[in-house]
């Protein structure tokens, strides 16, 4: 009796198994080691860091006053071009991503090989940054908005296709089985079985991607792929900081407006 009580008092309880504790310890250890190693070997010039407040003050002084008069001549057209690149790129991406997303969903296309190939295309599209896509398309089609639009489109295929494919895989079987029982064809099953179920997910993915694309298309011009980034690049190269401030302000305004538009539409239709 006494021994059992003793045992009960000296028992220790642990929340995790030894294997889990080892895995967690390894992760903490690797994180700390990685931070220490990076901090020791990264090349930072301390003088530049001490100089930073001075430089920022200088930058703000050069940026002020903002060159508002530059907007009609140098910024407006580029800004519209950016919006067109983002919108057209998103439309193109959706058109290309839908078939690939369908092919990636196992319940729609019951072939592991096709699913795997489609997923490979989606991963490849996502692992290349939109700036790299832009560099590639500038090399192929020459500088301009065409390269930018294709860069946005190819970068977005992976994102849209992956999310649409996942939404399709989560679709409820009941409706589809009911349609199958009536002898509905594959396309009819898609249109009347899957589409109504994935429609909300589809619209929210499309809007979200458009919002991201507005931000991304603003920098593509730095590598020559059209849009407001070209205006930014020119102003930067000429050290016209007043104009840089104007361009940055207009990018900020467009991004804020895009976010408001997306939120409004999402609230209305979803």
């Amino acid at each position, binding site marked *: 009796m006494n021994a059992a009580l003793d045992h009960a008092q000296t*028992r*220790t*309880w*642990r*929340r*995790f*198994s030894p294997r*889990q504790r080892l*895995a*967690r310890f390894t*992760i903490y250890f690797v994180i700390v080691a*990685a*931070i220490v190693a*990076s901090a020791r*070997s*990264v*090349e*930072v*010039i301390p003088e*530049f*860091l001490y*100089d*930073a407040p001075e*430089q920022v003050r200088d*930058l703000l002084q050069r940026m002020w006053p903002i060159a508002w008069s530059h907007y009609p001549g140098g910024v407006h057209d580029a800004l*519209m*071009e950016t919006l*067109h*690149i983002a*919108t*057209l790129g998103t*439309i193109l991406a959706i058109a290309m991503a839908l078939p690939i997303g369908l092919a990636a969903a196992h319940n729609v296309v019951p072939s592991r090989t096709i699913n795997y190939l489609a997923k490979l295309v989606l*991963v490849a599209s996502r*692992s*290349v*940054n939109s*700036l*790299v896509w832009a*560099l590639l398309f500038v*090399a*192929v*089609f*020459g500088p*301009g*908005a*065409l390269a930018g*639009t294709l860069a946005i489109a190819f970068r977005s295929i992976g994102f849209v296709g992956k999310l649409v494919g996942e939404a399709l895989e989560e679709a409820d079987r009941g409706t589809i089985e009911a349609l199958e029982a009536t002898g509905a064809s594959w396309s009819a099953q898609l249109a009347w079985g899957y589409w109504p179920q994935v429609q909300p997910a589809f619209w929210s993915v499309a809007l979200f991607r458009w919002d991201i694309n507005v*931000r*991304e298309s*603003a*920098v593509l011009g*730095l*590598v020559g792929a*059209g849009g407001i980034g070209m205006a*930014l690049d020119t102003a*930067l190269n000429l050290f016209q900081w007043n104009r840089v401030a104007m361009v*940055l302000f207009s*990018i*900020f305004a467009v*991004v804020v407006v895009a976010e408001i538009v997306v939120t409004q539409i999402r609230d209305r239709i979803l």
Partner: protein
Amino acid sequence: MAALSTAAGRVALRPSVWARVGWVLLAVYVVYALGRLDFSWPRFVTGLDNGARFFARMLPPRVAQPDSLLQGLTESLEIAILASCIGILLSLPIGLLAARNLMPAWASWPARALIAATRSFHPVIVAIIFVKAVGFGALAGIGALVVGSVGFIGKLFAEAIEEISLKQVEAIRATGAPFMNVITYGVMPQVFGRFIGFATYQLDSNLRNSTMVGIVGAGGIGGTLFSAFQRFDYDFVAAILLSIIAMIMVGEVLAAWVRGVFLEKGKVEEE
């Protein structure tokens, strides 16, 4: 008989008028935008020709300068790690301040405004500003990605805190615990799992962006990539791109593993 003929004449699932209007508007917009952006068929065809030559020159990938490739990749990795570490540390207090259910409005509004401001610019644009402020090199890249991380994690962390159950917070408060203990024992356990999710996602995203900030001179492999492009060293470009993709994929696998380890339920056991 009459009833049958009307039944046959009815169209099941009639297409909606609004959907048709939508398609027409979409088509009109696409044609208009294509015109504005100077697309033309001959240009596209010449482009395809160029593209074929371009890809022929990319193959086989050749590592022209192994030193600069390795150095660039290491620097990108270092930028990503340091930026994630500093960014996460900074975004914890900011995210907490921005949570409207725990903080008064005078504290949450400035924090929310700060988060919105840091989110509105692409990391590469922020990097341009940092290059001006602290000069060329890794420091500018770290600064730019820290700003991006604060925006992303701060926003998601604030949203996660806003969704917690306040009962546990109240229970801790009722014991007379000071504010920091309320946070540590009432709030943190509820958001820890999601926090691990954001943090690994952000490390992943910083790794991707750290390979790009070099295009504007903020350190990492991006600078090597951009200069190889400008020298038309396309086989070296292909080698750099393949190594970037390999690095990002390894990062993605590691991040998934870390998430798995932390989100696994603990098994209470006796020793």
